[in-house]
């Protein structure tokens, strides 16, 4: 029988004491070979989302990107090639695995209606439809085309956009494009505070 050592360990574990009864140690596995948990996982290079040092990280996901695999993160560690962090991470970066795979993540759109005390689920389509209507309504109600001296200002002071610290440059650019086109003046970001 062509038994690999791993197979033997399984058998030994299943058989429990049977394999070692009377001191006959059939195959002394003194050094359990610990498997490298990321040995064949998929590597994706990314950037840590926390501070501005921009540590390179490698996200290891389950599976090899084959069609029938839903990737899930199994480990995140520093990218040793990255000139700034050279593979190192801080305690927040080192815990990124639990940031990606976290049971507290929001996974469905919700709405809290006026006067209500609980969240309600809402479909994406309805949520976006309702939001678009509110944006338009507020804009139409508050848009100022000319100021008191008759100068063109084309601004909307009735709504605001605040962007976060982990929004990509591209997202921020799209925000500028969309919001300034709506005439939004209150365009602010974590960068301010």
């Amino acid at each position, binding site marked *: 029988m062509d038994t*690999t050592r791993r197979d033997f360990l399984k058998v030994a574990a299943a058989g429990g004491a049977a394999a070692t009864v009377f001191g006959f140690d059939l195959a002394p*596995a*003194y*050094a359990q070979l*610990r498997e*490298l*948990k990321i040995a064949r996982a998929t590597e994706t290079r990314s950037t840590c989302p926390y501070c501005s040092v921009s540590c390179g990280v490698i996200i290891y996901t389950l599976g090899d990107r084959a069609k029938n695999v839903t990737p899930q993160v199994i480990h995140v560690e520093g990218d040793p090639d990255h000139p700034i962090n050279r593979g190192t*991470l801080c305690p927040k970066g*080192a815990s990124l*695995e639990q940031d990606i795979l976290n049971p507290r993540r929001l996974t469905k759109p919700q709405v809290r209606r006026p006067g209500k005390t609980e969240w309600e689920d809402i479909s994406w389509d309805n949520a976006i439809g309702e939001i678009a209507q509110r944006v338009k309504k507020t804009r139409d109600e508050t848009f100022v085309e000319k100021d008191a001296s008759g100068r063109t200002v084309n601004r909307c002071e009735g709504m605001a956009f605040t962007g976060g610290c982990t929004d990509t440059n591209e997202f921020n650019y799209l925000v500028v494009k969309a919001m300034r086109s709506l005439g939004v003046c209150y365009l602010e970001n974590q960068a301010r505070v």
Partner: protein
Amino acid sequence: MSQATLEIRAISGHAGSVPGAGVKRELEVCKLIDTTTCIGCKACEVACLEWNGLTFSETTFQNSYQTMPETAWNYWNLIKFNEHERDDGSLMLLMRKDQCMHCEEPGCLAACPADGAIVQYANGIVDFQQDRCIGCGYCITGCPFNIPKFSPQARKVFKCTLCADRVTQGLEPACIKSCPTGCLHFGTKAEMKELADHRATQLREHSGFAKAGVYDPSGVGGTHVIYVLHDASDPEVYGGLPADPHVPWTVQLWKKPLKWLGNLAIVAGVAGVFIHYLRYGPKTVPEDLQGGKP
């Protein structure tokens, strides 16, 4: 078939020869912890937790940045924080990463009765094999650094493996890789010693730490985790780093002289009564004393 067993230098509770003793050439690995550049960020703690997939435990605030009072069975790597006032009144915030020291002469391994539950690889890593651990906790007694911790759920003892899984695959331990300031360093023991000595010299000559030095305690034959300390004359202030750690003398007494004395005594006892029987035979009761049959 793997050659893993050939990489073993010592086995706990083991009768007979050790498969790898003196067989393979292997570099001795070592962690260098430069406490003078530790910023107590706990990246190593979290990296250890993450890589090893350890479960979380509830902690509470204890008037310190320290995560918990000491390492735990599911928390193998802990930075110890200490506010230390120097003689000139200036304050130091001492931070020392505490974990298994991977002693050259490991007290845990010496104390362990279970065959193969603790092995020492040729590269110096002292590794617990939980499938062979019997949960007796003698290793806890044998360790002069308060490292092995018992899991009531698993009924096994756990500690830092020096990421044996990573190191055998040619990677550095998870804590080493994460360390942002490079206060942790990994390499061969010889090189880490050299680096540590170099840093200690720099601290003495340029940073005003006249007593800076390297901690590689000879009492346990040296360790595969060594420290650079601002003041090597007083390691106790770094969260109770023992000044002169030894395997407890009772463990040594028990495992060495007592064992042989005891074995001898048992054998002598058994032999003694056997010889007595050969010489004198059983005690008999003369019938006449009885005054008739019962």
